[in-house]
């Protein structure tokens, strides 16, 4: 493994960290984490937008 390999791994780890953090925050905020959309009729969509921004 060369330095560049470690750099790529670090980049992937960073992206994963942010992805996990984003998912956890969405879930913790009560937003529809894991929801596939259908926002038109979603009753929690205000909370989704508001609470995600607040955090």
């Amino acid at each position: 493994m060369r330095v560049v390999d470690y750099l790529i791994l670090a980049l992937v780890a960073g992206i994963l960290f942010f992805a996990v953090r984003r998912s956890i925050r969405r879930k913790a905020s009560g937003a529809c984490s894991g929801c596939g959309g259908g926002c038109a009729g979603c009753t929690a969509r205000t909370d989704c937008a508001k609470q995600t921004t607040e955090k």
Partner: protein
Amino acid sequence: MVFALAGNQNSGKTTLFNALTGSNQHVGNFPGVTVEQKSGAIRGAKDAQVVDLPGIYSIRPYTQEEIVSRDFILDGKPDGIINIVDATNIERNLYLTLQLLELRIPMVVALNMMDEVRDNAGSIDVQLMSRQLGVPVVPIAASKNEGVSELVTQAMNVVKRRMLPAVQDFCPDGAVHRCIHAVAHVIEDHARAIGVSPRFCATKLIEGDPSLSERLDLDQNELELIEHSVLEMEHETKFDRNEALADMRYSFIEGVVATSVVKSHESKEHRRSVSIDKILTGKYTALPVFFGVMLLVFWLTFNVIGSSLSNLLTSGIGWLTALIDRGLTAYGINPVVKSLVVDGIFAGVGSVLSFLPIVVTLFFFLSILEDTGYMARVAFVMDRLLRKIGLSGRSFVPMLIGFGCTVPAIMATRTLASDRDRKMTILLTPFMSCSAKIPIYAVFCAAFFARYQALVMIGLYAAGIIFGILVALILKGTAFRGEPVPFVMELPNYRMPSPKNVILLLWEKAKDFLERAFTIILLASVVIWFLQTFDLRLNVVSDSASSLLALIGRLIAPIFRPIGFADWRVATSLISGFVAKEAVVSTLSVLMGTGVSELHLALSSLFTTLSAVSFLLFTLLYTPCVAAVATIRKELKSGWATLGVIVMQCGVAWIVAFAAYQIGGLF
């Protein structure tokens, strides 16, 4: 300073809320869009918040919406109420106004849609109506932002000066009058103790509100006195308690309307809607038109627009993946690291991402149908059919939302009045195929049914509905005996779809899809890649068949042997589908070591056409994703009932797939 925004369904509450706060809430041409309260700061008014309550027709705690609204008004103690009234339908709207007036909270009435009243030669003497109701009345047209600033000024004024509604006795002398005043006298001290107007408490107690009775902490003697007064009123008026109060309110409203309102002519929008409805909701034409419209939507999405855009995006993703692959190879990057990037991240995320155009296109058409007012008609048309399976047309709304996502659909069941209807709808909604399954269908259709993609797609959606109906029939005869509650729904006029609404919806849909692809699907892809690249001792495997994932997959694969797909990779993809349905495709893509453009070719080594049908039926019907399961748990308030839903769904899915595979094998 907090204002409650209260009004009937489809009276323009959300439009006014957006005008007051400058927010972009979705405005549905569909009664019942708001189920939970939403709040926002009023523009141009310091420290003033407005809470948008669900649309209600009265403050009787009958539906979940009415409970949410009543609880906020009683417990949230708003400083003021903005009561939005549809001026084109004023009698029915004022019924709620009279109940709000009884609360004795500073209040202002916003007469909305005054532009329509004027355009159709109607008029309202606002000053006179204001005197009759005892609160300021402000004419507005929320959609054109007319009169909104004056409404804010009036609302701020009544709250700052604590201007309570003038004391109104809606009841002329007689039995109802005597009953209300007798009850108010009995409970006055209790009502003041909880800070609610005695008159409001009296009418609610007469209507038989049990929770208010508990809240007032009345003793047996007081309850008997109240019941005695009510029985006396019923005997004298020959009406039951609810009819007597409704008659009192409508008599007062008739008086107000007779003196202050010049009725408009029937609007041309309404005339047009009535003519269109002769076909779209006609006894013999409604269902053929509905199926025709849906067929057209699916054909345009899966055969014309969406699929072309999707193919274009697939080529772009394929080109980018190849470029990265070549770049990493040229730099001599470690093969495992390169595999993580190319076979894990790019193959996994790319396989899901390429279906973005299909999802957005489908929702483009559905949002147009909703915005025109057609979907409200479909709920009306479906009432007759749903009644046969023990549900009412109202259950169609959550089911329709379920085609987008099961999570908000389950939450939307709160609009159902009866607990029986609500629970039954929660059990059936996961059978409606959510949009996260579209990538699975699309990739299998391309692989096995390239010439009949639209038909197979419709078939899958229809199969979900049919199996939902069959389960409903079983439930109706067993766990959910009884009759559905009557379905009352206001049909809005047809209108041209609003580009702003449609664009807003598409943007949110696309944003949500992208967010999922780059969070949960990315994570799932990397985990799957890790498990299929290493063995138990964390050594890199040369063949994924000896990987950790293969070990896990082989444990559960035998369950799927009788339904035609015993390969451990397929079993694994179904497990990852529990996290998010799109992950089925990304997992297969990672495990087959292909990009999405070649995935459909690779699938032919795993499936026959028959086992592909069985797999599609299984994915259509098996357990909803973890987010949906969590929502079901929250709404049913029972872990066991939720487990029952998962077991039922998986059981139904396995039996249907088994039947399809075994029967298909006979031919």
